[in-house]
């Protein structure tokens, strides 16, 4: 695997969500097609590989963050560098679903952008019998945020590729949009920032 002279486009994806919902499991399944049974809390893991997205070779960089509250303070730093977010909760755990709101807020605060590429992911769909979060509930929250909702299973690999590829597509189209001249989003952003400074 030799690197070509021109680096393929790099899309930075960040996994967020409460502890134990399966962020790392999704990541490892996507990266290495393996399912890790034993649980080991993540601090912050980094993965990067080449994938072919709609015929175009791109690089995906996945930052797998810690779900534990202990690390909440350092999340800001990570979020800042992300271009797209997979907000994961476990359909077997209502607390994790509730926490998604908190993550969403934090991301919006850090990124300062309502339209940041974002997917709401309900994991552990193979454990349907233990479901605590209904599809309706999840869909309505996703609709409120204006983001897609996908149910996945890291164990069965159902929809695993889909969430990553969908997110990458969003990131890509977002980048193309940003590069268009006359787009005033950047301006808005700076304006808003200034506004905040004034408040402070």
């Amino acid at each position, binding site marked *: 695997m030799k690197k070509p002279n021109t680096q393929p486009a790099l899309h930075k994806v960040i996994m967020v969500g409460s502890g134990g919902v399966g962020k790392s499991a999704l990541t*490892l399944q996507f990266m290495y097609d393996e399912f890790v049974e034993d649980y080991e809390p993540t*601090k912050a893991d980094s993965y990067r590989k080449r994938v072919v997205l709609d015929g175009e070779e791109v690089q995906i960089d996945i930052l797998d963050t810690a779900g534990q509250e202990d690390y909440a303070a350092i999340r800001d730093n990570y979020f800042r560098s992300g271009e797209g977010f997979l907000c994961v909760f476990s359909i077997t755990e209502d607390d994790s679903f509730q926490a998604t709101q908190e993550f969403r807020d934090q991301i919006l605060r850090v990124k300062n952008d309502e339209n940041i590429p974002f997917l709401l992911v309900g994991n552990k769909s193979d454990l349907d019998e233990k479901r605590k979060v209904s599809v309706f509930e999840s869909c309505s929250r996703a609709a409120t945020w204006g983001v897609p909702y996908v149910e996945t299973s890291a164990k069965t690999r159902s929809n695993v590729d889909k969430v990553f590829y969908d997110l990458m597509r969003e990131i890509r189209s977002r980048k193309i949009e940003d590069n268009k001249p006359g787009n005033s989003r950047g301006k808005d952003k700076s304006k808003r920032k200034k506004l905040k400074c004034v408040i402070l």
Partner: protein
Amino acid sequence: MGPPPIVTGVSPKEGPPGTRVTVRGEFLGKTPQDLCGLTICGCDCLLSAEWKSPNKIIARSGPGKGKGEILVTTRSGGRGTCTVEFRGYHEMIGPMKETAVWVEEAPLRKMWWGRRGLTPTTYQHDDPLGISIEGVEQKFPEEGLHKLFPGGSGDLSSENFAAGWFLLERHHATPFDDLRAGLAFLRRKVDGQKEGQLSFIKSNVGSVMEQMDTLAQLKERFEEDVEKQGQDPTVRLEGAIKESMLEANKLFEDVLTRRERADATRSALAVLQRFRFLFGLPGAIEKNIKKGDYDAVINDYARVINLFGNTDVPVFKKVLAEVELRIAQLRKLLHHRLEEAPTSLEAQKKLIRNLVHLEEGGDPAWDAISCHSRHLTTTMIHCRDTNLAQEQAALEEGGKTPKSSKQKSTSSSNQNSDWQTSVPARVLLTEELADAISERFPDFWKLGQAYFTGELQVKVVPGRQQDFKKLVLASISLFSGLLRAALMPHTLVRTPAAERASYGVWHSRGMEGLGPWLPHCVRALRHAYSSLIRLDLPSEALDIVAGLIFDLRVHCMSTLLKQAGESIRNLHTQESWNIQFDGEHGGITHLPAECERVVAEALQLAKDSVLLSEQRETLLLDPDVVQRDLNNLIQNMLLGFVEVLDKLALGSDAIAGESPGVSQMIGSPAIFQVRGSDSVLDKGRGKDKESGPAWEQRLLCVLSNIEYTRSILLPRIADLFARYQLPAQTGPLAAVKKALTELDQRVLDAYLEQRSDPLVGTIEPSMYIGNFNWHTALKPMDVRPYVKELLTNLISVHAEVHSISPGLVWRVLPQLVETVAEELARLMVCLDKKFNVHGTQQACADIAAIREAVTVYSTPTAEAFFEEALEAIPRLSDVQGKRNVEDVLNNFRSRMRLQLLCFRDPKTPSTKSV
């Protein structure tokens, strides 16, 4: 070779040294053995690496700091690549940091090695609010802070800590929500601490339990001991130690006494040994002296003096006296050997050292030096005497000359007819002296150096330095003087007679035949000189030899040139008159080539041995005097060749040669005779020298040679000089050129005289042959025979000249034509117009014919003479007469066509004669 490993994942992506890192990727090795290298941030982590699968390795990060790659190397795939980064950082223990173990500040890293999870917040964060302060570009001005919080400080550990200051300093750009989150974080932490030690112990329960256990164990052990040993456990120990000491003393007492006894015996034996040495010494000394092992003797002697030097025992004294006697003998022996014929330098140095060690009085080193110098002188004088005697003997016996290789056959009566006899004694002397100097002198000089540098462990007597220098100079100048006396006595003219005599007086006759040996002598001398230069002699001494060499080179050069001059002067004996033609310069003999060869040889020889300067020699031609001498010599040498040519052309024996002449009538043309003798020469040359070519031809040859020499040879010789890096010899060359030109003129005149006299002489008799009379002449039908004869004779001269050098034709024929015209004019004027009509016609036709024939070689003077001749004849007035003349001329032209062709200018053929 499989695909190279690639790392695509790392968990976690940062951490302090010792962090357990899960490395994920592809082709990370097929087996644990396949993995042969793992670096994280440049630190080798292979030791802690644990291979799990081709996709996963677990290792602990090393002490690397900062971001870096994770590189995996496998045997099957080589060195891999990496798409992710690991960041290593060093964790600091701050005031906000709890830790269950004692933290030593300095080797912080080691304390943390492999210990994780001891505190719930291993993730270090500077900020108590847990908010990142990255990206704060603008700093709050410090003056403003001072104003707002007088006496405050932003330092958390300071007593004057002011929270406002801290917030403004660190977080003045942090959004309010963030600050709120930070506050929540801080509150959580404080709460955690407030829970008391409980939560801390909870998280570190392992260590605490361990500590408790250890303390309990310790207490248990101690109590056990007290139970067993009573309150004071050391009493018994002390008793045991004392007892063992006593026992040890008992054990070793015996051994110690035995050792003392052995020591005593040994020293007694040593004393005895010493006595035996003393009594055996005289014998040993003698034996060693015989063996030549002086060092051993000296060692023994020094030892005995050391041991018994101050003894009062009469027996010892007696033996010592005997030893002294032997040593005195040894001293004498050594001294004698030192003064004997010189041994090698090392041997001599050794002898001197031995003598010094034997505390010999006097100065053995200096003795050796002066002895050496004496020996050098005697060797040289001896050389001189033997060779002088030899030459004397040779002179008396062999008669005229000292033997040289050429004379060997004549002096066969000489008894020693080996190779040596063929070499002049003087040359032998030079060789021997040069050998002596280059062999003996270095030893002498080095000995002196050793003496003065203290290598011989002798005190240098003041003033010796000067004496040594004198010795050196004396031997060198003796060397030079001897050689000068033998090879160049003329350079010694100014030295005092007594000194001159000491160098030996050589018979002046011995100088002959020395020439060819001189370059050899120069080489021998140079060899000696170079060995002297290597010695680093004082320049005074070297200058003497350098002067000698220079003089010898000059002498050699002049001898060589003189020799060359002589051999050039002798060239006339080698003239074979064998003419060689080359395209441009007509015929020349081999003489010029010989001359060139001789010059070139002389120069080559001179260059090889004399002209080039070696190290520390002056350029031969530097002094003006030498240059002038050289010029004279060269001029002489080259003038020699001119003389040779002169001798060949005009010398007495040359004229004596019989001249076939041209004064023959038509019936016996000279051409045939000349040709005939030429062919004889070609066939039988060498058998009969006397039958060489006629004098006239020789003259022509010489003329041609002169021309060649002037135009070709001299420039070539100039080239030669240039090639041998002699300065341009313009002076001598010009002089030679002048001499050549003069000679050329003389030879030409001689030839012309030789040829024109008979030619002109024949005109008158031939004109009146058969009682012809101009006033009784019949009607002319043809030109008169004398005209034909004249033309034929001219043709033969032309042929002769042309056969040797075509170029000369132009110098010879016009002159001849002039003389012929003059004679014709004289004859016609003498007739005083006594012509009848036919005679007039005849004369007109004759003169016109001659004139027409030689028109190519005619000169204004010749034309004037022809006019004069025509005027002497009565004017031809009638048409009939003119037509008659015309008829005769036409007749002449057609009949003599062949002959007339001879006079045509070979370069511009004229149509006149056709």
